[in-house]
């Protein structure tokens, strides 16, 4: 889980070009500076690509906060 959290954080940092970014679990994506709807799609794709996971139709539209994203990637990653 810690590995996944670090990996998700790195993807977000890369996509947003903010190497020092710290994100709390309950932080909502849209409250992070630069994390707009376009960046959101890029982040989803980058996570799928990096972890070899696949978000469902519903998840694509619903994912909102950082902790939720980490937990979902961890769950899918461990079962893949």
């Amino acid at each position: 889980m810690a590995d996944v959290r670090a990996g998700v954080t790195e993807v977000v940092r890369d996509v947003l070009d903010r190497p020092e970014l710290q994100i709390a679990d309950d932080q909502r994506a849209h409250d992070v500076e630069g994390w707009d709807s376009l960046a959101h799609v890029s982040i989803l794709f980058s996570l799928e690509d990096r972890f070899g996971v696949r978000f469902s139709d519903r998840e694509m539209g619903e994912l909102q906060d950082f902790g939720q994203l980490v937990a979902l990637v961890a769950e899918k990653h461990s079962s893949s």
Partner: protein
Amino acid sequence: MHPLVRSAREHAADGDVPAALDALAVLASGSPEFTDWIATDRLLGRLTADGAAAGWPRRTVRVAVLSSHTGAQLTACLRTAALAHHVLVETYESGYRTYEQEVLDPGSGLYGFAPDVVVLAVDHREVRVGDGDDADEALARETDRWTGLWQDLQERTGAVVVQHTFVPPVDDAWGELGASSPTGRRRTLRRLNLALGDHAPAGVHLVDAEAVATTVGGAAWFDSRYWYAAKQAVGLGAVGLLAQRTVDVVAAALGLGRKVVVLDLDNTLWGGVIGEDGLGGIVLGGGAEGEAYADFQTFLRGLRRRGIVLAVCSKNQPADARLPFERHPEMRLALDDLVAFEAGWDTKAVMLRRIAADIGVGLEALVLVDDNPLERAAVRHELPQVGVVELPAEPSGYAAALARFPGLQSATVTAEDARRTEQYRARRRGRELERKSGSREDFLRSLGTVATVEPRDETNRARIVQLIAKTNQLNLTGRRHTDTEVDSLAREPGAVVWALRVRDVFDDHGLVGALVAVPLDASTLRLDTFVVSCRVLGRDAERAFVGALVEHAAASGRSRVLGEFVPSDRNEPAASILADVGFRRLQETGGAVQRWELVIGQDEVHVPEHVAVRRPDPAPALTAGLTTT
């Protein structure tokens, strides 16, 4: 994080913006990875924000992206892709699906932006052809609509226009009928792509999006989850390559393309090291690896025909470096295909500078193709303007790596090229007619087959043994001689060991046949082994080959040729070769070997008229065994 992005960040932190941009330019020249490219674009935004990049780009280009779908990721990737050309791109993006309004309204933001380039990033959903429509009518209507948009753009901006072709969706309700039925959707989309190509005036260019989709795969191109979630018509795994191709066409249209492909030799044009392995030791033609090298050379000749110039830059003794060009029969490139030939012991950077100066182009016109990663790294470091192809480890991947390298597109063709295209079209039409009406003989004659017979020597001996070992169908006796065995057969006085090469108007098939014949007695030559690859099956080259041997036997004073046929479960296609040439079967003695004879001066020899045979001369020299050195 990609090491090049990290390195660019470090240079940026040190305040060295040009070095940061050089690192990103190398990243942009490689195979696009979405996350890295998006990260690059963000970093680029910081690097260029306060004019710190001034002086680095060859040119800054204003690009308007008019999209029928979400275009932000494509736009970001276009900015990244342009770095490979040492170009910075300033972009304007139309609102979601407003491309048509933007073009039609003279007061739109598009025209306020004053673009140098307009990219029409449109997808198949924009093609307004309904299921019940008359296909011809709808197609004409759509062609008019798009050409009309181009015309408005050209009249109002003078910009270069680049449009993505439509990628036919694979999972539509039409099934396989979609490709063939007159109103099938996929067929209509393909027809529209062709019509747009036919109607594109000067200054309007198409990007073959279907080729991009094929490269990344349908699953990556069409990811419908991203369409429903964010109106991404092009999968994000495909956007980078689409951007790379788009910018490549733009660069060519603006005259920013590269012009000279500079080639290393050892392990780039052939396998092995000519200075150590010698002419017979290098790997070229004959066998999987050798054919990959040969095909890469063929690809390079294709580039040359399209107007890309070729040069050589090699660390070698000049005489060694030239030897394969002068003497190796499998070389596809000749010395006169090259505009410069640098061989010596200077660094590659020094030699590349000399090539550029000699032919009067800038360093940014050069692309280096070199299998050695150290040489590549050195050139990237010393001459960042030179494009350096990241070659894969295997020669089978060389052509694709070079084909995808940014900067080698041609946007326009010269008047002469255009005429050539018409000639080819006329020739093709001629062939189509022939195919419809002609007989098999007409067809074979039109192939212009040339069979070249050559004696065994150090350049073909390995291939001869390989053919003997591998050929199953056109194989008379199935004897699998080793190189040493062939050697000892060849040493018998009067023995003949030949290789056969076949080419026709379409292709050079290379070395495809071999035979071993040894004297039985003073009057008789016995055909011990005869193999021809099934690559040239059906064009009678095997008969021409046997015919050449009969002629040779006659010229050397023999009165008879003895043929042998050993039937196996695989060589049925070879069963009639001897009879077809005119051999008569001898009374059976039992056993597995059929014996056939042809009496010279008495039996008629039937050789195919449509195959031109080139035989080595003078004949007696051939009978000598191979002298090993």
